[in-house]
């Protein structure tokens, strides 16, 4: 009766779990900070290698229902490492490596406890890796919480800093309430279907008696609410700017890339595998959420004058674009999921790049952290350090979706095409208008880099790890701009 466990399938999270425990104990026994950073980045890289090794192999599934309990139903595995999972695990791990690189300097500067920081990052990444592999609602909830809980602590880790603990409290309250709402939704879905595994929920929803129909519909909308928080979609978006500003900047980058990518993967899994029978309910809901999210995000980004809040609102708006393809419902759903995945992958590269430059730039203030970088501080960056300015300008142009930032343009076109193909033309029109609004604030920021300096100098020494991160992101952005079809091919094969 004992179940066999496919250790190869769960290798990526397992490596990180062992490394995280080791790191915690190493910190307790006073290992030097440099070693801890190395261990953290090294284990992430090892997990990335494990994902790469799994990629060419077959679909692996583990923690399945034993034959005796299956009662003629499908195989019902909780953890599935298929191409979709591995693709998202790759995105999450690559982004996490960059975040760790960005953190090394920040840990020293802000006097953050290093061991705890790395441990919490690894724990959150484990949550993200499990979330994208989860195929039943129990594991999904547990993974979502494993992703969320360490992040609360990470946000508030800077000691004796009022803004950091405030940001942590805001994130915490919104997150926990949305988790409770989502759990209630799951309980309704479970009540209607009697199953937790998505491959059992989906057929049960298809032949649901009419009197249970409203129960299941309410449950599905409540589950959507939980994911809307994770990806910062509109009714649950207001934490984003405050938390990004109050948290240590690398943690903000983590929230806006890793946590968001995992949230989108979870959303796609639940909607496409679990609830396709109710696409007529969640399709329009997602469509409205997407439209409101991108519009509100863009309009509020227009009036921001600090770099970090602008990035926060722009990442809210970008969430809207990523949600848009899922509004098609069950018409051409695989295509829509592929479009969302492609957008998430491309967004991860360009947004991490922008964050990396802002983190390096923020170092200028040294230990005095009362003021945040206003956009005016970026004037004249092109003259004092042309390479960094060029990289930032390129990331911003990509985010705006203008040539030569072909990858951004390409991502927008993929999403646009999937939305139109699914017959949600009104949403495509809203997207087009929003893209134009978005152009304005990205370009205004990019243009400032090339105007005359404001006197504040950028001493171009953000430290080697941050420079490496900027360089890696810039290289990836350039490569993907030259050959964007790499992403689309990978994604289409995977989904």
């Amino acid at each position: 009766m004992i179940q066999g466990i496919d250790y190869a399938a769960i290798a990526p999270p397992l490596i990180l779990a062992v490394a995280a425990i080791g790191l915690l104990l190493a910190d307790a026994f006073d290992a030097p900070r440099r070693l801890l950073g190395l261990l953290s980045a090294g284990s992430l890289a090892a997990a990335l290698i494990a994902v790469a090794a799994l990629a060419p192999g077959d679909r692996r599934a583990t923690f399945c229902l034993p034959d005796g309990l299956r009662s003629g139903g499908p195989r019902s595995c909780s953890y599935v490492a298929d191409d979709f999972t591995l693709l998202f695990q790759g995105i999450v791990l690559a982004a996490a490596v960059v975040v760790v690189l960005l953190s090394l300097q920040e840990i020293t500067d802000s006097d953050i406890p290093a061991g705890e920081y790395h441990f919490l990052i690894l724990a959150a990444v484990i949550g993200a890796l499990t979330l994208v592999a989860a195929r039943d609602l129990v594991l999904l909830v547990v993974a979502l919480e494993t992703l969320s809980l360490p992040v609360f602590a990470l946000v508030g880790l800077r000691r004796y800093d009022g803004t950091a603990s405030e940001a942590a409290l805001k994130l915490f309250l919104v997150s926990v309430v949305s988790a409770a709402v989502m759990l209630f939704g799951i309980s309704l879905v479970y009540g209607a279907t009697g199953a937790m595994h998505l491959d059992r929920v989906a057929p049960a929803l298809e032949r649901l008696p009419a009197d249970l129909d409203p129960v299941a519909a309410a449950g599905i909308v409540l589950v959507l609410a939980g994911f809307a928080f994770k990806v910062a979609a509109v009714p649950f978006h207001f934490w984003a700017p405050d938390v990004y500003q109050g948290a240590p900047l690398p943690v903000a980058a983590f929230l806006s890339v890793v946590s968001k990518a995992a949230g989108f993967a979870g959303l796609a899994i639940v909607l496409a595998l679990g609830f396709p029978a109710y696409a007529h309910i969640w399709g329009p809901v997602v469509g409205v959420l997407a439209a409101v999210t991108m519009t509100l995000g863009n309009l509020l980004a227009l009036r921001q004058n600090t770099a970090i809040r602008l990035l926060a609102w722009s990442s809210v708006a970008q969430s809207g674009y990523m949600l848009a393809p899922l509004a098609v419902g069950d018409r051409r759903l695989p295509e829509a999921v592929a479009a969302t995945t492609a957008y998430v992958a491309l967004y991860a590269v360009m947004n991490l790049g922008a964050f990396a430059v802002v983190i390096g730039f923020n170092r200028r203030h040294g230990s005095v952290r009362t003021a945040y970088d206003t956009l005016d501080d970026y004037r004249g960056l092109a003259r004092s350090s042309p390479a960094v300015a060029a990289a930032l300008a390129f990331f911003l142009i990509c985010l705006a979706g203008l040539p030569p930032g072909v990858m951004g343009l390409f991502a927008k076109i993929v999403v646009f095409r999937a939305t139109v193909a699914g017959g949600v033309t009104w949403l495509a029109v809203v997207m087009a208008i929003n893209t134009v609004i978005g152009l304005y604030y990205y370009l205004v920021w990019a243009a400032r880099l090339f105007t005359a300096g404001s006197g504040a100098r950028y001493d171009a020494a953000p430290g080697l790890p941050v420079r490496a991160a900027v360089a890696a992101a810039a290289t990836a952005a350039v490569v993907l701009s030259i050959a964007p079809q790499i992403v689309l091919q990978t994604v289409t094969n995977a989904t």
Partner: protein
Amino acid sequence: MSPGHYLALSAILFTIGALGVLVRRNAIVVFMCIELMLNATNLAFVSFSRMHGNLDGQIIAFFVMVVAAAEVVVGLAIIMTIFRTRRSSSVDDVNLLKY
């Protein structure tokens, strides 16, 4: 007692919790309301589990309990750090971050 009564109770508890989160201002009381919401979902899970005669609902109830405990601890720790700098636990006093 049919499971229907338990479900009604769970819905009522969840509503009280949600109202409390929206209305109350003391962070500790907001926490208690969140706990109420989580426990209401637990009650729903367990009664559905009995209705369907399978154990999935009871398993998730265990996980929800553990998650709730971990959340409370992290949340209280965050309130401690805020209290250290502000000497107040009212949500309305949390106002440093605005645009």
